[in-house]
């Protein structure tokens, strides 16, 4: 297995899929000669040529809108949004068309479009370079949402997204793009959509998280274990829609306690959906209130303050201790 960073694994996944299927193409701002501002598409222009790795005009609704037309024409476009907040101009195309085209054609037309973007904060950037927009996409029926947290999953989920006949939004935690290098399976590697994974086993409480927050969750669990306070299970959702409900319910059935961690603002964030699942179908197993540890209900702040905004291991530990006291 090669050792690589998360963004290298994204690149590897893209290359694998483009080599496998000639209908796969990449389009976005600066994805060609520059290889993307994070180099996620580095080398693809040279390898697959300018027809399949395309620099576009600066127009996100145009990128997703033409991708819909390209898909109708039989292509499998992968759109890069340069940063997550610059996907907002394309929300109309996603909500009005991409998510509905199959339904609208009575199931005749597939929309195998992938929209991938770096998301989340912690990189000392100016505003609107650090949003966590997953809830917008998760609330769009017809769209699937994947959020890798490790290099191997990044490669595998990219592959799954590209092969899926339905549109998939892949949110790549930019703070983890180069945070560490890890082994990634060589050659074809595929992580099924809709399958969460337990990244740490435990018995006393379940930490449910995804994407950029996994290291925070892991650190909090580690701390409680080191202190001998509790063994906390960490569940990485990996895809938000379809949500792996069984994995959530099974873990909480075992531990009786749940803390949900995400970076996006709390209100109507994706954590609410997980909490709602527990309130609907896990309540008899719960031995304590559910807790959400999230960004606050304000815009992502100026970066000198971002460390106070992003959920910290401290805040997660505090929430865990609270539910463990029940």
């Amino acid at each position, binding site marked *: 297995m090669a050792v690589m960073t998360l963004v290298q694994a994204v690149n590897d996944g893209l290359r694998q899929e483009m080599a496998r299927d000639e209908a796969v*193409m990449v389009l976005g701002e600066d994805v060609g000669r520059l290889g993307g501002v994070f180099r996620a598409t580095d080398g693809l222009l040279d390898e697959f040529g300018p027809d399949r790795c395309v620099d576009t005009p600066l127009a996100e609704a145009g990128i997703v*809108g033409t991708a819909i*037309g390209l898909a*109708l024409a039989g*292509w499998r476009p992968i759109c890069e949004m340069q940063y997550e907040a610059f996907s907002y101009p394309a929300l109309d195309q996603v909500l009005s068309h991409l998510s509905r085209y199959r339904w609208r054609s009575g199931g005749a037309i597939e929309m195998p479009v992938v929209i991938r973007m770096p998301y989340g904060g912690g990189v000392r950037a100016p505003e609107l370079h650090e949003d966590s927009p997953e809830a917008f996409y998760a609330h769009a029926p017809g769209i699937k949402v994947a959020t890798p947290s490790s290099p191997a999953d990044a490669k595998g989920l990219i592959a799954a997204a590209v092969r899926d006949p339905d549109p998939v939004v892949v949110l790549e935690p930019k703070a983890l793009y180069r945070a560490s290098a890890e082994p990634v399976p060589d050659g074809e590697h595929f992580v099924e959509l809709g399958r969460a994974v337990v990244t740490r086993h435990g018995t006393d409480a379940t930490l449910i998280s995804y994407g950029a927050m996994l290291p925070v969750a892991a650190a909090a669990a580690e701390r409680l274990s080191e202190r001998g306070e509790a063994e906390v299970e960490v569940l990485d959702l990996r895809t938000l829609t*379809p*949500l792996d409900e069984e994995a959530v319910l099974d873990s909480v059935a075992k531990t009786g306690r749940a803390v949900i961690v995400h970076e996006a603002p709390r209100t109507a964030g994706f954590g609410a959906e997980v909490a709602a699942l527990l309130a609907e179908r896990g309540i008899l197993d719960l031995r304590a209130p559910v807790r959400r540890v999230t960004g606050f209900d304000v815009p992502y702040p100026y970066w000198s303050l971002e460390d106070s905004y992003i959920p910290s291991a401290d805040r997660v530990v505090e929430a865990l201790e609270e539910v463990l006291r029940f």
Partner: protein
Amino acid sequence: MVRLRTYDERSVVYHRQGRIGTYAIFWGHEALQAGAVHALEPEDWVFPSYRESAIGLLRGMPAATLFAWWRGHPEGWWDPREWRIASIAVPVGSHVPHAAGMAWGLKLRGEPSCVLAFFGDGATSTGAFHEGMTFAAAKQVPAVFVCNNNSWAISTPTVAQSGVERLVDKAVGYGMEGVRIDGSDPIAVRDAVRDAATRARAGGGPQFIEAVTFRAAPHATADDPSRYMDPAQVRAARERECIGRFESRLSQLGVLDDQAISGIGDEALAEMEGGIEAAESLPEPNPRQIFDTTYALPPRALRRDRDSAVEALRWR
């Protein structure tokens, strides 16, 4: 043209009779729609807005399908690949990027066909129109953008959209060729579209056609144009309407006589009467349809919802 007209006029009647829902009238735009589609090859794609809801008639789509659309019945949706007609775009301007993308996709595949998109004057104000045009120009795709400037976006006159009188001026900003034609003259439309399509297929890039018409009818069945339109202007436009004009031209040329005209009319009427009846006798749609078309690979939770909904409530 007559079939479109008959479809349109019958639709207004059927709406009044409660046989279809709200309906977007295209009376007076038949020359544009028929002229444009007749100029295309069968392999060329068409991207309609709600204003061209019956465009499928021109490629042999059954009238029943179209009436079913306005009846909110699932059978009203077709497979776009079967007819090379995209799904009707309801949000104004939003399909312009799709047309650009399809044309780009054809070009990348080396297919020798082109794409035609219909939209209105109001659509030229939308960001989606702009981004679609921008892509089409940047990638020099084989597309023909047909703007039906019918003077109105519901109650808003064209000049109130951006202060531009001639929408063809918009082409300049994309480095596209643009022409302005009389959209009520089917021959002028056919010629302009044929030229543009030929050039597009030959790699000459996209083109913009402003077809000048007039919406001498309400925006849709729910609209009340007396609030904003000058009745005299409407009367004048109705007198100049495209079908009468074309019929008298053909009659003068001796191509058409009264008998032929009424024959065509009767045939169209029979087609539409048959269409609405066929639409009405479609089986009640199955609520399972709600669940079964959104995803190729539906989430488990959705399948569970379907099963419990279907069983528990028997869809009262």
